[in-house]
């Protein structure tokens, strides 16, 4: 039988890891219960403490282990194809202007988001009655409506915060976005939000979407027009919170590649 080496030992799959944790938890529970029963029989308070501790940690281990999780590689593999489709559409429609994230007052469904890409740089927005979430092209002014790639993520933000961004304001975003991304969703290591007049700068360090955003940078038009998933999600949130149209002005990575700096502009409607 060949001796196992580092190369031929198969790494534990996430499912196996969860199974091991589960088995450990049940073993702790069993040991704890036995210790508790023995402590009752022999009237031993030390055994009772041990039993209580083991049972508690067994239950805790079962409770705190997530039932399902996906590897980051899987997430990174799914997103680029959707963005590639957007790139194709933008290239074929010959649209070069920056996408404008529309605020809820322009939409029929207030909880939804839409990005409008005008064909000319005149920043004229279509009238609310002309906007239809089902429509792709707009005639007056000429342009295209797209569902932002970060819409689902921004809805997840709302679910996590327990409120809709439409009921909040810019201060709420400034105060809650860092905690949401760092502590609640564990998306990034550090987040800083700076608001100066009509410019909002968000600096995100070591976020899990860095690879997806790196892929988006290769799709030049998508990157310039609507941004990557994370910047798009924040743009959706900002459009809802401010009630004004938002554009992603700039999105750049630091030299060490760890920090992403996104600059948003609030447009007057």
């Amino acid at each position, binding site marked *: 039988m060949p001796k196992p080496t580092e190369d031929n030992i198969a790494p534990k799959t996430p499912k196996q890891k969860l199974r091991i944790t589960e088995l450990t938890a049940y073993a702790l529970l069993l040991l704890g219960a036995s210790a508790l029963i023995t*402590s009752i029989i022999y009237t031993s308070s030390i055994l*009772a403490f041990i039993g209580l501790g083991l049972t508690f940690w067994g239950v805790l281990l079962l409770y705190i282990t997530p039932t399902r999780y996906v590897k980051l590689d899987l997430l990174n593999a799914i997103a680029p194809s959707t963005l590639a489709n957007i790139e194709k559409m933008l290239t074929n429609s010959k649209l070069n202007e920056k996408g404008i994230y529309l605020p809820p007052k322009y939409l029929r469904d207030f909880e939804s988001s839409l990005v409008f890409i005008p064909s000319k740089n005149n920043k004229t927005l279509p009238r609310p009655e002309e906007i239809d979430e089902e429509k792709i092209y707009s005639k007056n002014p000429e342009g295209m409506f797209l569902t932002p790639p970060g819409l689902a993520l921004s809805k997840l933000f709302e679910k996590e915060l327990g409120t809709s961004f439409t009921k909040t304001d810019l201060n709420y975003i400034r105060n809650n976005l860092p905690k949401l991304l760092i502590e609640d969703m564990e998306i990034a290591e550090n987040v800083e939000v700076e608001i100066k007049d009509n410019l909002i700068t968000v600096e995100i360090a070591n976020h899990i979407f860095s690879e997806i955003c790196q892929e988006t940078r290769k799709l030049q038009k998508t990157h310039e027009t609507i941004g990557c998933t994370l910047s798009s999600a924040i743009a959706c949130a900002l459009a809802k919170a401010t009630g004004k149209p938002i554009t992603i002005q700039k999105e750049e990575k630091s030299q060490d590649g760890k920090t992403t700096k996104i600059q948003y502009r609030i447009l007057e409607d």
Partner: protein
Amino acid sequence: MQIPLSFWDISLWLAVTAITLLITAELISPYYGQTNLLINKKKLKNAALTTGILFLITVAIRIYGIITAP
């Protein structure tokens, strides 16, 4: 046959466990690199808070006992 732990033993145990869990929940980082044990940080925090509240309830019972004692 009865459980050889008094109400105050359990209160003490709750206090020690609550402190341990609260410190762990606050200090634990999602970037600690150890992926063999997956932990839902939010649930750990909830468990820590619950244990802490249970301990405070035992303290409240103790205070109530002292106040109402003849």
